[in-house]
């Protein structure tokens, strides 16, 4: 069974199918799969001291999917032979629900860890998804990075964090 590797969805996320898919995709490919690293991002109950009631993620879906596929190409360039899968949730999420899941498989653990960390850092830099937090006493859009896919310095920062 194969899963869609790069997806932006209103449905609840599951890491297991992604971990299984990236692992099986390296079977039979020399040198094979030696490590799968996974990351799950969750909706946290507080943000900068304020109690979050729920949040909503909005996306420019077709471009968000393309950005995830772009991150995959970047990962292939830096860590050849890595298999990557990323699903990002959108819509209304409750505290404790998963907002993003990432699975990276590689022959060795260092590449799998690096690719997984790089992917989440790059999502925060370039993927057109916006987080809208709802508190007991108001709401706020979280505005992080100006999405610039040609900003090589940003990519280098993500690479540095991934390889720290």
């Amino acid at each position, binding site marked *: 069974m194969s899963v869609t590797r790069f997806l932006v969805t209103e449905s609840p996320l599951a890491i297991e199918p992604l971990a299984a898919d990236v692992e099986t995709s390296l079977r039979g490919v020399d040198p094979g799969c030696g490590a799968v690293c996974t*990351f799950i*991002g*969750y909706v*946290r109950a507080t*943000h900068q001291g304020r109690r979050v009631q729920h949040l909503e*993620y*909005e*996306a*420019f879906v*077709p*471009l*968000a999917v*393309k*950005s995830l596929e772009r991150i995959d190409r970047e990962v292939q360039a830096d860590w050849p032979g890595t298999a990557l899968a990323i699903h*990002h949730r959108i819509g209304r999420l409750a505290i404790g629900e998963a*907002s*993003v899941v990432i699975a990276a498989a590689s022959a060795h653990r260092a590449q799998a860890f690096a690719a997984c960390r790089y992917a*989440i*850092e790059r*999502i*925060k*830099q*370039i*993927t*057109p*998804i*916006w*987080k*809208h937090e709802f508190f007991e006493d108001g709401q706020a*859009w*979280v*505005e*992080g*990075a*100006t*999405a*610039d*896919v*040609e900003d090589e310095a940003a990519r280098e920062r993500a690479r540095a964090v991934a390889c720290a």
Partner: protein
Amino acid sequence: MRVTVQLFARLRELAGQPELTCDVPEGATIATVWQELAAAYPALEPFGRSISCALNEDFARMRSSVRDGDTVAFLPPVSGGAW
């Protein structure tokens, strides 16, 4: 010529709509479209320094040329992933 403009997140809220049309002269760039939009919706103007843009569902530069019938998207700073 006429282009479709898509707005997201806070830009969408400030303009009060997710999509609108914008008339721009021949030779216009995405920057021209933004100037027209900011003139019509002054609340958007402060975002001029922090937005990025897309043209027909691909990342683009503000200097990219637009053609009649194109769809331009303006993206406020992003915040997906995990915080």
